[in-house]
């Protein structure tokens, strides 16, 4: 969903994080011993299970909560989560797939221009914050969308939001602000 202002600004979703519950207690040791492609981290108390087909890494806790990361789309995240649940079911647990929720979507976007961060921050004073000694990017938070945009002086931005739709909207929202503070213009 590109804004009408820009022509084909590519928003690339790089990561989708989702959680779900299995509604049953999971024996991590069993999973670690019998599961395939698992990494047991007893110090933390979780098992990582990596899937190949949707490239997904899942953190499995004994409470039955599972966090699924690495997907490139929401659908993929769902599919991977189901596969994971199926895997656990095969291991013998009474798994029920419930409470699937996409928690976070990370996308990157590249502006065709560089950005003058100081000006950008000045123009958007409360919403944008820039601390160059801490982090080279200016942070712009859109409250109603619950999205956070990190703006880099090269023109690249990263957007994180609760779902893909919000992310797209956030990009559209921030684009004109960025456009104002293009570097060659301000120079």
């Amino acid at each position, binding site marked *: 969903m590109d804004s009408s202002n820009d022509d084909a600004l590519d928003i690339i979703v790089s990561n989708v994080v989702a959680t779900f519950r299995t*509604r049953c207690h999971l024996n991590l040791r069993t999973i670690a011993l019998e599961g395939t492609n698992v990494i047991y981290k007893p110090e933390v108390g979780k098992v990582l299970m990596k899937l190949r087909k949707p490239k997904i890494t899942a953190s499995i806790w004994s409470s039955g909560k599972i966090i699924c990361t690495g997907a490139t789309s929401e659908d993929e995240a769902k599919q991977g989560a189901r596969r994971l649940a199926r895997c656990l079911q095969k291991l013998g647990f009474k798994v029920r797939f419930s409470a699937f929720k996409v928690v976070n979507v990370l996308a990157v976007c590249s502006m065709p221009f560089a950005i003058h961060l100081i000006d950008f921050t000045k123009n958007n004073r409360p919403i944008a914050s820039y601390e160059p000694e801490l982090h080279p990017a200016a942070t712009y938070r859109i409250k109603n969308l619950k999205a956070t945009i990190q703006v880099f002086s090269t023109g690249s931005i990263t957007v994180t939001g609760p779902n893909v739709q919000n992310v797209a909207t956030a990009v559209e929202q921030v684009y004109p602000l960025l456009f104002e503070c293009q570097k060659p213009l301000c120079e």
Partner: protein
Amino acid sequence: MLTNTGPVAKLYLSIIDDVIESMRELFLDEGLEDCVLDDLRHLWESKMMQSKAMEDFRKNNINSSNFVLQLPANYSQTDQDVTASVVIPASQNIQSFPRLKNNSETLATFSLPAGLAYPVQIPAGVTLQTASGQLYKVNVPVVVTQAAAGQQPARTVSEFREAAAPQSAAVPQNTTHPQEVEPSSVTASSVTPPPPQKTSLPPSQESTVPQQPPVPAAEGPQPQTADSPEPEVTLRENEPSPQLEPMNLSMTASSCTQLLDFQIRAEEALAQTAPLQSRDIDDILKEVIEEESQKVERARSLAAGKTGNQEDALGLDLDYSYDDLSDIVQLDGPADNSDLEEEEGVPLEENDFLGIINAEAIKALQEGDASSDGNSISSSSESEGAEDHVIEEEEDPLNSGDDVVEQDIPDLFDTDNVIVCQYDKIHRSKNRWKFHLKDGVMCYGGRDYVFSKAVGEAEW
């Protein structure tokens, strides 16, 4: 006997020894006879040698011949100093033989790797034993060379004879003299396996006549002659000069067959038998050794009579297994052990650690989840709004695997390549794994390898 043993086999044998010895008392306490234990031991050893050594044998026989050098004790061959260092300028390794004292009665066994383009220098006083078991004693330092597999029809065999053997080579010419190799072509004559002493070798005093010593191959006519063009051999009579001269045998080798003709000076009359049909390095060295054995017999009149007895008579016993040394060396240490990608992660119960890294997943790279398709998920029609209605049991969206795609679990453990070991450190970055392993046994390609350290890398 267990002559062709690699370091792994030696380890296994020592393990067998330990177990058997520790069991001896128990067996006796139980009232079982000692012979039962010995039977068990023999059975065990034979099975082990069969399963593991078969690969060794096969590998050796296929590639080239095996030699077991036995250095006789108290070998005092006049001027010639028994250079106990055998330098084999193999293409890969240079095996330097430990220095053997003349007076020490040790039997140094040492196998030559097969397939190397060898200029093999064999010191005097060495008994060579081919893979077939024949023992041949070399009294003269022999350098067996092989022309680089180039099928050169003409070979020159230059032979330098050490004049250490004072005995006159009063070897009567055998009937097989006519079998000598003509420069034109040499048809590998069938070699009959006479007793090793019977190798007939023209004496040094003979006139320069190209002679072809017969090769008493234990295995009769070598079947290898087929393809190789008979190499021509130009034999030069060794001049009866009393200096130490290494014997130089150049032989062309076909892929399998090596026809060697060389002239060996013998001191006693050796019945020469069998036309020479096909020779390989075994046969040549057999001849050499036999000739030398004659000399030694004469010279020493020791128990070097039958080469078969030499094995027993010689006390020097240095087990030196060369055949797989290169492999073993390369597998140990920091060498990249790409083999790890295929095995490892044995039956999980056997692993010490709980952090299971399933490196067989590497294998599954090819299969992956190919079997499972992602489309079935989209075909699932269950409602997704069950987030807050967790109490609704009927809502179970998993559908008991009906729509849920089932992840393909490849038969990751259905592999024969297995490593059983302990780990020092296992590290992962994204999908790159690095393994630091220790104290393990690996069964790869049917063969066993033992390591104290292994390092590997893999990608998942």
